[in-house]
């Protein structure tokens, strides 16, 4: 799965903000604000990591079981697909 656009992800006043960078020949003004875990996962998707790599990073970052990490990542990735921000 990958994002349809490349994003700049930055913290503004402790809130993660993702802004789509203009694709070649196509302007976009997509702005997304994200919570803590969402920002973490989104940043890794934006870097091009696959699902299993993201689950492993999530497990290493947060105090959760592997199953909980997988559930959180899968849930967020499903939201990205459903919202049209990402594609398989």
């Amino acid at each position, binding site marked *: 799965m990958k994002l349809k656009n490349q994003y700049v992800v930055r913290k503004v006043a402790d809130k993660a*903000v993702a802004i789509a*960078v*203009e694709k070649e020949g196509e302007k976009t003004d997509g702005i997304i604000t994200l919570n803590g875990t969402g920002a973490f996962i989104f940043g890794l998707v934006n870097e091009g990591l696959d699902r299993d790599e993201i689950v492993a990073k999530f497990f290493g970052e947060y105090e959760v079981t592997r199953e909980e990490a997988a559930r959180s990542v899968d849930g967020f990735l499903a939201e990205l697909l459903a919202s049209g921000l990402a594609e398989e």
Partner: protein
Amino acid sequence: MKCRIAQLNIEINNRFDYLAGSLKPYLCDFDKADITVSASDADLAAERESLDESFSDGYVESIAVCRKICHRLPEFSGYMLHSATFSLEGHGIGFLAKSGTGKSTHMLLWKQLFGDSLRVINGDKPFIRLEEGIPWAYGTPWCGKEGLNLNDRVALTDLCFIRRSGENKTVPISPEKAVSYLLEQVIIPEGSANIIKVLDMLDATVKNCRLWEIYCNTDISAAEVSAGTILEVK
């Protein structure tokens, strides 16, 4: 035309007269421009897509030129904040809202209360420049239909998001909440480097300002409530 806006030397190669009038307070001579800008036919056509047909070519050119300057501002630690911004009693206050919500209307109600001690820096599109971490709001010729602007500046202390409401009240809001609102009122430039610069400047702006939501109607009592809260709270 050569002008100095927000302490930047800007050369505008305009084709229509509309800009000449509004640029008068900013005209200045210089040898080297920080920004040189003109609007092409393609720029005008792109701008027309979002404007009413009744607007003149000169007005459309003015908006296109402003937008092009805004895209260059991050190179100079600056960005444009869509707001009605003024100085009053040591405060630099910005009213922010989507067009048509009433930010100018609410500012003019404050003007009724405070008279000449309230100085409108810009009624619509001040440029903000970060200087040693402080966000300074500068007057520009792009200032909304009332034409209110000064070739002057004020350090921003308060950002107020205007909401139409039957009930007048002013409440502080968190930086996290303000960020989402603030992002709706800036022009996001092209390119990763400039986007990062704008986001970092927004971060500094939010951290330097008190943040409010003003729920208001259009009566003078609305200004009494909001001014009473914002100016009284230390």
